[in-house]
């Protein structure tokens, strides 16, 4: 009991998720139905995957604003390569992953070797990717994803949405790897103090490149999943993830200064953001209002985590 309480105090985001769910349930009892819960899990998966990758970028003390472009690029490429045919799934997925990782590697090289500020490197990369998607499609996207592939986004396994399972399994593996493998610990170390990490024999530049590659890889996975969910190409589908992924990570307790935070926190953060969105949908708030709330949420959670951190210090 006491341990459970402690766990909550250290993970206020889970408390926030629970509270928000209760409030949403009170306002709209439909939220409490199993199918609505499963539905929320299903759509959280996309943001959840992208945000898991974003967590790593923030943990190394950076940020990855190119995830939006990567998701869009993945969606456009996957649909145009699959053309609705099952036998094309494998090559399409492989190409998307390869390109995504290549983008991540370039981001990493810009940040680690050319010392470009991460926000500028990835913001510019995002514009390049969006432009590339426009040029590639000529403004009119084409193709569709294969029926078998769509099962990932639309189907369910043992009554649970397949997309949610994909997200949770992959993200939990990542969470474990971050805490318990050398590579994960190196990522935390580089984020907390890059110079010291270098002095401890950590190949810091390689770790940075790897971190941005992982971030891009997870954006590709999120992009594939949302493609499987909607089945069609859609220019600018990634744009919704640019802010939301950062919000989810920050709400999940990861600090912008690097080296502090967790993927598990981000899982909760993604749930919170999605819950909030569906809550505001129920409340019939406009898209504009949702952006406003999202912005307030970013500032608010940074402040809350600082207050918690400082009170822990004085104890």
């Amino acid at each position, binding site marked *: 009991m006491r341990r459970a309480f402690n766990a909550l105090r250290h993970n206020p985001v889970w408390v926030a998720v629970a509270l928000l769910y209760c409030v949403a349930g009170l306002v709209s009892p439909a939220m409490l139905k199993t199918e609505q819960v499963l539905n929320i899990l299903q759509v959280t998966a996309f943001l959840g995957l992208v945000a898991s990758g974003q967590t790593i970028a923030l943990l190394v003390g950076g940020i990855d604003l190119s995830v939006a472009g990567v998701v869009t690029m993945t969606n456009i490429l996957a649909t145009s390569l699959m053309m609705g045919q099952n036998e094309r799934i494998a090559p399409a997925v492989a190409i998307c992953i390869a390109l995504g990782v290549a983008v991540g590697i370039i981001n990493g090289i810009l940040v680690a070797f050319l010392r470009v500020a991460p926000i500028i490197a990835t*913001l510019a990369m995002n514009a390049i990717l969006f432009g590339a998607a426009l040029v590639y499609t000529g403004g009119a996207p084409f193709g569709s994803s294969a029926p078998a592939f769509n099962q990932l986004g639309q189907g369910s396994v043992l009554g649970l949405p397949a997309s949610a399972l994909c997200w949770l399994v992959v993200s939990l593996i990542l969470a474990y790897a971050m805490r318990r493998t050398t590579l994960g610990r190196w990522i935390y170390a580089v984020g907390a103090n890059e110079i010291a990490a270098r002095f401890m*024999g950590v190949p810091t530049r390689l770790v940075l490149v790897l971190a941005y590659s992982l971030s891009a890889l997870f954006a590709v996975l999120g992009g594939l999943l949302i493609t499987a969910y909607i089945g069609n190409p859609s220019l600018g589908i990634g744009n919704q993830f640019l802010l939301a992924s950062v919000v989810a990570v920050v709400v999940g307790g990861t600090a912008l200064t690097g080296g502090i935070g967790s993927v598990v926190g981000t899982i909760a953060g993604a749930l919170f953001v999605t819950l909030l969105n569906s809550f505001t949908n129920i409340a019939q708030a406009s898209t504009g209002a949702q952006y406003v709330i999202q912005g307030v949420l970013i500032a608010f959670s940074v402040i809350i985590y600082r207050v918690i951190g400082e009170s822990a210090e004085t104890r």
Partner: protein
Amino acid sequence: MQQEKIVGAEVPALELTDIQKSFPGVKALKRASFACRAGEVHVLVGENGAGKSTLMRIIAGVWKPDAGTIAVNGQRVEIAGPQHAQSLGIAMVYQDTRLVPDLDVSQNIWLGREPGGRLLVDRKAMDDGAREILAKLGVSLPLDVPVRDLEVAERQLVEIARALTSNPAVLILDEPTSALDAAEIQRLFAIVAELKRQGTAVIFISHRLPEVFAIADRITVLKDGEVVGTVDRDAINHEQLVAMMVGRELALAYPPRAAKVGQERLVVRDLTSPGLFRDVTFSVRAGEIVGLGGIQGNGQADVVRGLFGLLPHEGTVTLDGENAAFATPAKAIKAGFVYIPGDRHREGLFMPHSIRENISLPHLAGWAGLGRVPADREQDELRRAMSSFAIKAHSGEQAVRTLSGGNQQKVVLGRWTIGTPKVYVFEDPTRGVDVATKLEIYRRIRALADAGAAVILVASDLLELIGLSDRVLVFSDGRIVDEVAGADATEERIVGSAVDANSPDAQAGDIAANISVQSNSAAPAAAASLPARNVLGRYMAPMLLLGLIAILSFATAQFSDFFLTSRNVSNIAAQVAPLALVALGQFCVIVLGGIDLSVGPVISLVTGIVSYIAVSEGGAGVVEASAIALAAGVLTGLVNALLIVKLRIPDLIATLATYSVVFGLALIVRPSPGGLVSDTFLNVFEFSFGSVPAVAIVILVLYLAMELLLVRGRLGQRLYAVGSNAEASTVVGINIGVVRTAAYVFCGLCAAGAGLIVAARIGSGDPQAGATFTLSSVTAVVVGGVSVFGGRGTAIGVLLGAVAVGVMQNALNLMQVSAYYQYIWTGGLTLLAVAGFSLRLSARRNRR
């Protein structure tokens, strides 16, 4: 001489009586009393944490005492703040220099107190005054060289000169020698003697005893927040002073030297790294501690960093007979060569992480490759490391940040009790730890040697180096110039051989004379040649950019006859105007080291606002719309400033938050493009003189005004100072919160202004109208040669950056390139500019 002083100093220049000061959990000062006379050098000594710094900060007005009185020239005063202290004639030179690297010598000397009018500073008065003060110090420095290009010792001179601008009666020097070599210390002492002769009361803080005896008239000893006593220098000897400081003799502190040493373990032959060290040859035996000494910065630290794989080098290195020329720290560690750097905060610890994570980090690859870390093994090793170094903590999961300095240092050292390294390199292993921990660390280091390791010690504290080493190698100018057995080593011998080996004009004896000779010859030449060079330096990036724009225009003109027509040029001007305006705001933020992502949505929001208000024909609503729009911009800037300055949220995340909020508002105002802006509004903002758009002229004037303010105005000094070194700016009394707030508000205002221009151009409201401006404003700024790290850049460069973007856009349009490519080349151009800037920066760093 002694007599004179006492007679002339019946009323102390500064007197503190029964000062008390507490911090949460600590009594820093307990009824401390202290007096300093005019024309004396009063040295304050004491261990770390004795209360010296607290006392000095109270005198300098940084902190207020809880109780006690302060009197200046016999008059009782309450010091309200640093500015007040200065007006009372008290000036302080801080231990770590607080200069602004990107401002030049004159600007640094006068920072926060520049002579001149309200808007502009009087550069001539600044230079004249600076020259006069430097002459008083007997030195000469080029006045318009950025401080970043000066040596450490020269920077300190600038800092002292700055303290003297207020003509202080009391000058406080807080450990001024810690970063200086012997020759520079001699020069500093000559300056202090000169100030003393001119009647200044100098308070000198130090804990290097030989220095204390060399310079003091009187000495006050502080211990645990209390004054142990004040004595004349001639009335006390070295041992007695030490006894006063620590309450016991320090002679027993060092563990006995090695009785016998084993065979050679580390053999270094002809190690060379151009510019840092050359032909370094030595060996370290099992059980031996070899000290690398000499004057700081003569290659000792570089040699060990080279051996550890952090610097490229040539030569042969063997460890136990095997090749040990390591290319990376990882390889060195794997081979059993470990390096424990001196600056634990910067180079040794991961503050937010647990003791466990800190200790096991370098061993992870050895335990697990890249894979799973064995938890049991990690716990076992952690327990052993913690107990063998007696680290005091609740558990291994406690964050290192929460430990005391001594315990933090134990974590740094305890890390390497895991495994059996063959060679240990310690750099200043006892920096900033208390005496008890110091002794324990000495014993540990000796124990490691006794167990058969080869130990290299690099220490800036010569007594520590001598006390601990079996052999001392003396470095000078990157070479080993002397070798002394530890038992025979003395400070005199080490400093002597280090200095003798240097070029003859740097001999310790008559340094002071030397400096003044140099100053006479160097001054006129430097003054004559510099202005041209600096104009060139400042406008290098803009001139390059101008060339690029010319080439681009020329090339485009070959493709299209239309390009150079006055109609197209006025087109370009109209296109560039909004971008240039936002970029001006973005520049002010970026030069402070920040960024404002919210500018794009502000533009969108403004078009939305305008499309509702400035709609009726006949002119109604134009003023209202403009006022509301500008107010929205100011408000966004204020919110940004509130989040960043007051709530200390990083600029990136704060403006991302406002980006989201303002974009949301823009969507609420105008969910989709629509509305029709009145012709009156269009006529106002699209007005042009002939073919020159009026807004373009206004913006050009704004840029020229900004450039003037940057070069000669108070504003420029503030912007560059805060962007380059916020802490230094605070110390001289610049309110950085105000400067930052002003920059964000100005940026919001510029964005709103740009929004009005955009609204006039598209003639309606559009929630996406500003979408591309966030990136393109940053593009214009970085292409214009502004450093994203703050402190550097010109307004003219930014204007040209915006023009370059506009011309490029126009050219591609004329060449019928799809508008879709715009995203790609803006992104690419940004990356090129920023990467190019950082490459240039690192090339410059390598050259030095």
